[in-house]
Structures are given as structure tokens and as C-alpha cells.
């Protein structure tokens, strides 16, 4: 049935988080958990909850994201009504500087005006949750809030997350800077719901004042004036913001702790890879393996993306191997992250440590 929420995926605050991987793609397009890209999780969560119009506001390097999303077909978002919209970033007329997420929203104001949904839900791409947006909206309405922010227990001691401080009745009284301190009980899940009218009013006001950022320029300064409410999310949360968090969150998947098993289905671009072949002598344990791989050697506690080849007597341990990488005969890869199409030549050894996994760049031959 018709859905009251307009989906907004705001990539405009995810700049340069993770340069080892985001040199040639934006964070939302980073491959994760064997066959997905980060944005698939937020998009899947939106569409499985019936949100049928999603706007993605980009920062830069959005070409690989456009390639991945295509016409939106895989997410059933190739609609004539609603569907998927990817917006290029707002740059200064001379193209020199990015102007902030508020400018992004303001530049594409028409998109919001034209859409029929009375509420907006705004998320990013690198904080993975299974938040029930409908329940959050019901909560928002029943509390009579102006704005509702999602929060979760601060269990992960995540240095990227923003602590959130709650007053009486879950009213938000403070939003901290990124970083963890033992005093912080709750963390912000980077999810915002408010009415579209309020959203547009706030964006108009703030851009006319020259503000840049929705959270820091608009919501935080007005916590006393607006009724900003907290919505307690109790499900799993995975935050990807650095090589180490990428590595650790990936390894959590192998301990069955990841978020991927909490979705009935996760939608992504389909590549039509055949099933994975295990050859004679293969030895694979504690591994998450995508389709199209060919495994003759040994794989332990690792993630193989689509089309990876592990040749005879090769060994892959505690590692993440992205699509179409090839580990030749007798090579060893340990505590490493191999980007796409890396070739590890016969007999080579790549070895990082668990605290400092080695990253091998796209299309490198080692």
C-alpha cells in the first residue's frame, strides 16, 4: 500500500573516511560480506519496508555507484512513479568545493516538493542496521516529536560514532562529537525521521544562513527549540569507517554475528555467476564464499567475493578477498584484504597482522 516515508540516503557526510578503499569509489560502493556493497543494506532495509521512492545524495566519485545501481531494477526501484534518484553533489560554481549536505538538499528541493510522501527518513550508508522505519515513524507520530533520531546502546566503543544524550522521556538533549568515551551510554544510528514540511523549512532557513550540515548546522543548535526525540534501536549494528573496522566487521560475519542473517533477503546487483566449484583436495573452513569461485587450495576464516580463484596448495587465512582476485599455486595470504582483481603470483606470501591487516589495491599483481 502507499508508504508515508520518502527515503533519503545522504552520502554527503561520508567524505574521505576510508581512503585505502575509497580512492576510486565512494564509501557507499565499498564491497562488503562477499557479494554486497554497503549501500545495499540501507536500500534493502528501505524497500523491504515498502519505501518506494529513494533519493541518494552523493558527494563524489558516484560513477561506480551509478554503475552498481543501474536503473534500480534489482531493488524494484525502476518505477515510473517514485523509484530511485541519484543526485550529483552540489559544488560551488567554480567546482572547487563541496558545499555540504544542506546545499545538496537545497539544490534538489524540487525532488522533495514533488514527492507525495509526508515524511522523510534520512540515513547514510556506512552504519548498517535493520531499523524498522515504520515503527520509528509510528513512534515519531505518537510522541508528537518534531524530529526523531535513532540511537542504540554504545556497546562497540566505536570511535566513529556520535554519542547521544537523552533527557526525560527519551528526549534528545545532546549530540556529541564523533568518538567514544566511557561515559557515553548511547550512540546515534545516523537515522532521522521528520515531516517533509519541517525538513524543507529547516533546509531553507539553514541554507539562507549559510549553514553546511544538517546535523551540526541545524539539528544540534536547535535541540532546545525543537522537540527532538530518541528512538531506541535494539538490533545489530555494524559501522564501517576505517580499514580496521572493515576488517573486524567482516570477521564478525564469520562468527555468525553480522547483520547479513537478519534480513530475509538482501538485494544487490546480479552478476549471473555460476555456483562455486570445490575441486579435489580443497580444504575450506569457517568461510563465507560467494558464487563463481574455484577453490583447489585451503581457505580458513576468510571471505571470498565472487569469482575468486584459490589454486592448488594456496592458503588463505583470516583474509578478505574481493571479486576476481586470483591466488596462484602455493601462494599464502594471511590477515589481508585484497581489493578486486588482485593477482598473488605463485609462491608469494602476503601477511599482515590481525590488528593491522595489509591492504592490496585494486588490480595489483603481487
Amino acid at each position: 500500500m502507499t508508504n508515508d516515508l520518502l527515503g533519503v540516503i545522504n552520502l554527503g557526510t561520508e567524505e574521505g573516511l576510508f581512503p585505502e578503499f575509497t580512492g576510486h569509489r565512494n564509501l557507499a560502493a565499498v564491497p562488503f560480506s562477499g557479494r554486497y556493497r554497503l549501500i545495499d543494506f540501507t536500500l534493502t532495509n528501505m524497500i523491504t519496508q515498502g519505501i518506494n521512492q529513494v533519493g541518494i545524495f552523493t558527494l563524489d566519485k558516484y560513477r561506480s555507484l551509478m554503475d552498481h545501481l543501474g536503473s534500480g531494477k534489482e531493488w524494484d526501484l525502476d518505477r515510473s512513479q517514485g523509484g530511485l534518484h541519484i543526485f550529483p553533489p552540489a559544488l560551488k560554481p567554480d567546482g572547487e568545493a563541496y558545499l555540504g549536505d544542506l546545499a545538496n538538499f537545497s539544490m534538489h528541493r524540487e525532488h522533495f516538493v514533488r514527492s507525495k510522501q509526508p515524511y522523510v527518513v534520512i540515513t547514510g550508508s556506512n552504519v548498517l542496521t535493520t531499523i524498522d522505519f515504520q515503527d520509528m515513524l509510528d513512534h515519531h507520530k505518537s510522541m508528537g516529536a518534531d524530529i526523531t533520531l535513532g540511537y542504540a546502546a554504545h556497546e562497540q566503543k566505536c570511535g566513529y560514532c556520535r554519542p547521544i544524550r537523552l533527557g526525560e522521556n527519551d528526549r534528545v538533549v545532546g549530540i556529541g562529537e564523533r568518538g567514544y568515551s566511557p561515559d557515553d551510554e548511547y550512540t546515534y544510528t545516523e537515522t532521522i525521521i521528520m515531516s517533509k514540511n519541517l525538513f524543507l523549512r529547516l533546509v531553507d532557513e539553514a541554507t539562507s544562513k549559510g549553514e553546511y550540515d544538517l546535523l551540526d548546522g541545524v539539528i544540534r543548535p536547535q535541540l532546545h527549540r525543537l522537540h527532538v526525540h530518541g528512538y531506541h534501536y535494539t538490533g545489530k549494528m555494524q559501522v564501517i569507517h576505517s580499514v580496521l573496522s572493515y576488517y573486524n566487521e567482516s570477521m564478525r560475519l564469520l562468527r555468525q554475528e553480522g547483520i547479513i542473517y537478519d534480513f530475509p533477503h538482501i538485494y544487490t546487483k546480479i552478476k549471473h555467476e555460476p555456483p562455486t566449484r570445490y575441486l579435489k583436495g580443497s580444504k575450506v573452513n569457517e568461510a563465507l564464499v560467494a558464487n563463481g569461485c574455484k577453490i583447489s587450495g585451503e581457505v580458513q576464516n576468510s571471505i571470498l567475493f565472487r569469482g575468486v580463484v584459490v589454486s592448488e596448495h594456496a592458503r588463505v587465512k583470516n583474509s578478505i578477498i574481493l571479486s576476481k582476485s586470483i591466488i596462484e599455486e602455493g601462494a599464502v595470504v594471511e590477515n589481508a584484504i585484497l581489493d578486486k582483481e588482485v593477482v598473488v603470483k605463485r609462491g608469494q606470501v602476503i601477511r599482515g597482522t590481525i590488528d593491522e591487516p595489509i591492504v592490496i589495491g585494486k588490480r595489483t599483481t603481487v
Partner: protein
Amino acid sequence: MKQEMVAMLLAGGEGKRLGPLTRKTAKPAVHFGGKYRIIDFPLSNCTNSGITTVGVLTQYEPLELNRYLGIGSAWDLDRRNGGLAILPPYQAQSGKNWYEGTANAIYRNLSYIDDYDPEYVLILSGDHIYKMDYEKMLDFHKEKQADVTISVMEVPWDEAPRFGILNTSDDLRIKEFEEKPEKPKSNLASMGIYIFNWKVLREHLIQDAEDETSSFDFGKNIIPNTLLDGLDVFAYKFKGYWKDVGTIQSLWEANMDLLEEDPPFDLYDPDFKIYSVNPNQTPQFIGKDACVEQSVINEGCRIEGEVQHSVLFYDVRVGEGSLVKDSVIMPGARIGKDVTIHRAIVASCAVIEDGATVGEPGGEIVVIEPHENIESGTVFKQRA
């Protein structure tokens, strides 16, 4: 919009010899190769040959097939002009009639084909596993200025009596067609793949429909009639893997073929992908004490036991201490702990409870039916 060639895929067959696997579904919907259904092969061939208009003729238990085909997105056939169309029998003012034969099924859909005003019509069936570029066959058809071209395979002479055999002159012109001849004069077997000039086929379908003695069948009526009429009928020699998977034994064998070191049938060619509907599963998870060798395994599986020389479709679970060997396990099957399976086809969503035994080394191929439940501790070696 005009199309040079329209494909018509006969998918109404019951596939009786596949027993429980086709009790509730048409044969073209039967699973194959860890990820596919039989119909994926002719459809992917079409996509890879640049054919964008495909009529699929259904009749027997089409619900699962219809659901699977959807709007044809998987094969890039979700189009406004042409694309995939499902063509079931229907009621006309003159009465309600089911399709009476392969030729009748096409005859009843003349107007569908006429809509695209094609030069050529390609007739396919949904019974075989093979990869073929139909555009090359069309090039041959044009080069020979043929009225009809029949795709043929050389088969071993001793197997020839099981096929429709074509006797040709040196330039591959077909002189004679014999259905299952006792003493074959050639070993060129018809693959049931035809290209017709649409004008010629149209005329012959109309003539055939008026012939009360006809069985309205391509092999029995249409092809012999085109030869009788002295038309230019040519044989197009196909080389490669081509396997009928119409029996339990042949279906099992064709799956086992994929497990060889260098499989005779290659699913892994990036320039000729086989398309199928994606079940949106997570990557497969191979557990701590699992052991997997010489196997083909699809997404969504979760293996805690031992899998040897087997094909596992998506979303299969194999519990600790279990052994699956020389078997085909179809989507959604659940295999508990300490189960032993040899030489079996476990159909979709079947459940094999803890400690059960299915099949035996060297035994006949055992089939566990869709949604069947084999209780804990049962020994199931052959269906009574």
C-alpha cells in the same frame, strides 16, 4: 515492432519420466546444475544470440514456471517491444481447446507471431541442456537460402535408433527424415531445434490444422510435409554438449558431469553466461568442521558436514557429522546431523532428519520428493 526472428519455446511438456520431480511442475522448470532450471538454457541461448522476442508455450502445471519466468528480467527479456511472453491455451468463441500437439500450439498463436512480422521463426523445446548461438544457425540458414533448417548432432550409431534421424546429401540438404529408424542410414539426430522461414511455416501450420489425420506434431507432420513438398530443408551440424535430462538417471548424470576436473559442459564461460533468476541469498557458509571436495555449491548453503562429489543448489543445509556423496541436493533441502546420503536426488525443500540414511554406494539413484520428510533414523534405499 518488426523482429527479424521470433523464438517459440515449447514448454508445455509433462516430463512423466522424471516422476516425482514433475508431479507438480512442468519439465522445463526442473532444477539443474546447482543454480539453474532446464528452461534457463534455451532462454540464455536466446539472450546470447541477440533474440529478444520469445514466446513460451505452456500447458501442463505452469504455475511454478510462470512464477519463475516473471517478466523475464533474468534473461534481459523484460521489454516493451517483444521480450518474453507466456502463451497458454485459451478459450475462443469457437470453443475451449487445449494444445493438441507441438504444431497445434504454434498454430494457435499465429497472431502472436504475425505481430512481429518476422522473416524467421525459431522453434525450441525446454528439454535439453546445451549452449548454442542460434544466430550462427541463422547465418547458415541464410547462406543456404533454406526454407527450413534443422539443428543436428552426430550421435553414436548404436544410439541412433532412439532419435529422429536425418539423411542428407553432401551439402547438408536433407533428403529423408526417419523417426526412430531400426536401421538408421545416418547418425545425424535432430535436436528438435528448427529455423523456418515464417511464410513457409505459416502455410504449413494452416494446412496441417486442416488435416484431420494429423497429430499436429513438428517431427511427425510438419517436417515430413516440408520434405514431401520439395522445400529446401537443411541440416545444421552442432558440436558440443547436448543432453536430454528427461529421466532421473540422465538428470543425475548431467549433474555429475559438472563435477569433473574439466567438465564437458562449461558453465563458467564469461562470454556465454547462463542466466537464471537470482534467489537473493547470502554467500555460502562453510563451517568449522566441514569438508567439501569435488562439488558445486550455490549461495545460501550452510555446510557443517562433509560434501563429496555432489551438486548443492541454493539454501541447502548440511548438518554436522553428515555425509553427502554423489548426490544432487535441490533448493531449500534440509539435511540434519549424522545423515548419510549416497547417489540421491533430494528434491526442493525435502527434509532429511538426523541420523537418516538415503541411498547406498553403487545403488540405484534414489529420489526424495519435494517437501518430503525422511524421519530421523530411517534407512531409505529405494522407493518401493
